[in-house]
């Protein structure tokens, strides 16, 4: 009998994990970077790392099903003659017609309207479906200016000057040829079928001083009626917020790196920008330092999933949140009912992110006439409204438990953090301690 040394268990590298190896092989085979949709997928400090304290001897709660807990919010009261009044502090983020199908855009409008909130156009202009089915529609003013015109500016309820987005701060839009249908091409004044790469910078202004003059122009064109938002990616939230306020914004939108995109490079999504949680307190601090907190409203987006996330964002000083990815899931994105088709595309329900390819089995991120029939805008809009209602009820449940008769009365003192990272980012104590990392020299 020969003696064999005991073998070691095969060990894979934590650095060169399966995904990394597959990406190296894919890059070597194709010679092109990986493009995908959605936001950062890596594990990041997030709202899950925060907990509410609830009521105790020093704080008494409100009755869950009886006492009122206000959810409304007014956006744009700083300069606009006609601010936006929302019933809930959850809005639908900008997503373009082009990246999304017509029925999907209509469903977003229907769901938002049923819920008393706003929806937002995207990098492709305003469609009739969207305007017609959205009681309150925010019109994005983007570097590409696709479809931009004064008539749509005037029939919008607010204007959002987009400087950047969380998935790709510093990157422009991307819509590949397979999604440039006749209608999309016409709206964007581009030839059908070409790969469309939108500009990353505005064509006629650079820097905060120019932005102030640009905002003045938009106000003059719309007779000072519309709230003007400025949206930035989560890059330098303190300074970007301060500069947006200085430039005259009514509302600042800060989008963290979990915020989705229709398409960009995977390396961009995962390596540029800051997590949503890390963006909130600096943005709030900028408003407080300028004496503009609650006067200029702050909207935060990127990874908002449920009422707890909403309540936590509001407790940290945000006026409203915005959802994109979650809204698409409510419409039917990545639904396991299409699993066989996801498998045929080499993926699985829950992981499908090749939105740029236009072959979405759920019919949402496509311009394929057959696939988009799978979205019933009325039923999908109803699902979105249900989801928004649940999120609102969840946030109210938490607020009442913290003794608050308005979601906007939640405060940082209602929160603790489960990790040192989250405590430092959110500026709340580590659970079980009174330690806020970074405060008072510690």
């Amino acid at each position: 009998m020969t003696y064999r040394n005991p073998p070691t268990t095969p060990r894979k590298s934590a650095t060169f994990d399966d995904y990394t190896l597959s990406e190296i092989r894919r890059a070597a085979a194709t010679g092109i970077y990986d493009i995908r949709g959605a936001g950062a997928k890596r594990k990041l400090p997030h709202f899950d790392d925060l907990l509410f304290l609830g009521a105790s001897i020093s704080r008494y709660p409100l009755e869950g099903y009886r006492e009122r807990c206000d959810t409304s919010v007014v956006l744009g009261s700083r300069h606009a003659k006609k601010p936006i009044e929302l019933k809930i502090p959850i809005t639908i983020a900008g997503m373009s017609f082009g990246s999304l199908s017509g029925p999907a855009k209509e469903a977003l409008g229907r769901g938002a309207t049923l819920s008393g909130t706003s929806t937002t156009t995207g990098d492709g202009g305003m469609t009739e479906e969207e305007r017609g089915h959205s009681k309150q529609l925010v019109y994005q003013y983007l570097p590409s200016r696709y479809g931009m015109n004064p008539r749509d500016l005037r029939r919008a309820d607010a204007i959002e000057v987009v400087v950047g987005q969380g998935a790709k701060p510093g990157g422009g839009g991307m819509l590949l040829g397979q999604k440039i249908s006749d209608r999309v091409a016409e709206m964007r004044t581009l030839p059908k079928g070409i790969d469309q790469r939108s500009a990353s910078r505005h064509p006629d202004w650079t820097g905060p001083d120019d932005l102030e003059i640009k905002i003045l122009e938009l106000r003059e064109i719309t007779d000072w009626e519309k709230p003007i938002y400025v949206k930035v990616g989560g890059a330098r939230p303190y300074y970007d917020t301060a500069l947006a306020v200085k430039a005259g914004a009514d509302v600042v939108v800060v989008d963290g790196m979990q915020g989705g995109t229709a398409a960009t490079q995977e390396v961009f999504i995962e390596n540029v920008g800051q997590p949503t949680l890390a963006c909130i307190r600096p943005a709030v601090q900028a408003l407080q330092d300028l004496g503009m907190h609650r006067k200029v409203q702050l909207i935060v987006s990127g990874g908002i999933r449920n009422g707890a996330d909403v309540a936590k964002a509001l407790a940290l000083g945000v006026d409203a949140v915005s959802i994109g990815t979650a809204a698409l899931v409510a419409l039917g994105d990545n639904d396991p009912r299409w699993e066989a088709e996801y498998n045929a595309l080499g993926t699985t329900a829950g992981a499908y992110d090749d939105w740029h390819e236009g072959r979405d089995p759920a019919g949402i991120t496509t311009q394929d006439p057959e696939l988009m029939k799978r979205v019933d805008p009325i039923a999908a809009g109803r699902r979105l409204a249900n989801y928004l209602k649940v999120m609102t009820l969840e946030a109210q449940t938490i607020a009442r438990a913290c003794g608050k008769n308005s979601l906007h009365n939640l405060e940082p003192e209602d929160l603790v953090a489960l990790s040192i990272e989250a405590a430092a980012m959110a500026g709340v104590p580590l659970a079980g301690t009174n330690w806020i990392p970074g405060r008072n020299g510690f």
Partner: protein
Amino acid sequence: MPATTMSKAERDQSHARVFDLSQQSLRELNQALHKLTSGSNETAWEVLNPKGSHSVAVGVDQLVSIDVRGSVGYYCAGMNDGAAITVHGSAGPGVGENMMSGSIVIKGDASQYAGATGRGGLLVIEGNASSRCGISMKGIDIVVHGNIGHMSAFMAQSGNLVVLGDAGDALGDSIYEARLFVRGKVESLGADCIAKEMRPEHIELLQGLLDKAGVTGVKASEFKRYGSARKLYNFNIDNADAY
């Protein structure tokens, strides 16, 4: 009759509504212009003392003539949709940005981004235009009597840019389907922009633009045409050096 072709006597007779920006606010001017309807008798306007103000006569959507007596700041005549606007002076950045229709004439020079993202109408600059003239243009016609600066017609999608003088560096970088006609020297062409043959239909098109812009003594045949090589329309890794 467009204000650009009116004599002083004709203008005096037209009973132009005079708006003096040293006496009244910019907001009052723009709101008065926006209140105009298609049946309005106030079809001729004169703006005095602009003194470099930004956003003069923006978002006008009626077929009126507006004479601005002096130089203007940023975004003069922005999003113009139908008006005939003449600036009797020079214009700051972004003049006529996103114009839909109508005409704009700048008697002096224009700063950066002239006619940016314009979708229609005619922008005439009788002096020189700075950098990024016609950036991202989407259907506008631009005629510059003098020279234009660098990065002009960057990502230009549609429309015509006519330059009687010279063009700066990187003309037409990443251009789509816009047509560029330059009579003088081009410092350099941007990515995917190439010189193209002037066929009879281009001569005819260009001559029409020169006539509309009131250019005399210049023949369309003196120009060269530039446009897209269309090599960057769909991503190809072998073209990555051009990006």
